[in-house]
């Protein structure tokens, strides 16, 4: 049995171990998914309006805030892409994979994993009903995208648990 976990390896590094082959394949696809961040739907989701009705505020906001946000998202993706070059077989976990990276990269991992989930959600028009689906047709791109959103979400959830295991106020 494969046991996916996200744990401190030592004081300076985090280890994701027990990564099933299917999730490892998805992680390798992350850079490709993240490149879709500038598609119109994904861009609208990643750079939402700050007000519901004020066109002036929204326009000014996008001019000022979007470049900084985009830099944050691109930078997170680049960090994770570099870390993923160290993805190797996890010999203690059968047919699994593992990757270690500096603890300072945790925010970038959380950002990139969530970015990828949101981008998949927008590109494939995944709604609440689709997220509640329990049967997945391998021939359906939408179903497979929803499955990827769930699996990447499980990994993201492990990062959240890692964060909450630390002293309140001190975040990784």
């Amino acid at each position, binding site marked *: 049995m494969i046991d996916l976990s996200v744990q401190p390896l030592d004081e300076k590094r985090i280890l994701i171990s027990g990564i099933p082959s299917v999730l490892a394949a998805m992680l390798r696809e992350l850079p490709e998914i993240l490149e879709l961040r500038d598609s119109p739907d994904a861009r609208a989701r990643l750079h939402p309006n*700050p007000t519901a009705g004020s066109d002036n505020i929204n326009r000014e906001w996008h001019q000022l*805030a979007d470049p900084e946000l985009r830099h*944050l998202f691109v930078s997170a993706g680049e960090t994770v892409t570099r870390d993923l070059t160290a993805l190797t077989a996890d010999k203690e976990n059968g047919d699994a994979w593992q990757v270690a990276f500096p603890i300072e990269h945790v925010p970038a991992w959380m950002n990139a994993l*969530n970015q990828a989930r949101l981008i998949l959600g927008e590109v494939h028009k995944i709604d609440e009903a689709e997220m509640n689906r329990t049967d997945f047709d391998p021939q359906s791109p939408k179903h497979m995208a929803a499955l990827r*959103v769930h699996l990447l979400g499980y990994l*993201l959830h492990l990062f959240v648990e890692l964060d*909450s295991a630390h002293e309140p106020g001190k975040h990784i």
Partner: protein
Amino acid sequence: MALPIETGQPGVIVIGETEPKDELSMPWNVIVHNDPINLMSYVAMVFMRVFGYPRARAETLMLEVHQKGRSLVWSGGRERAELYVHQLHSYQLLATMEKSGA
């Protein structure tokens, strides 16, 4: 602000609205909207990080977002509201701000 207005009639004054409410002093609400993708645990974590809320409050607000579709997560001055919305967007939450009572 309501100010007294001279009517010209001895002893009679009228209290009237002479200028609009001071909009600058009106608080702004920061609203977080539900979306089908963001994890509930992730949203609660973001509320703890951005606002410094204790876990119980963060989870209550997260559940309100999930169940009611939106939650007023903070109210106060405009500049701080803008800062919070920007931070929430950096965590990829759907957040907007609006004038209180708008």
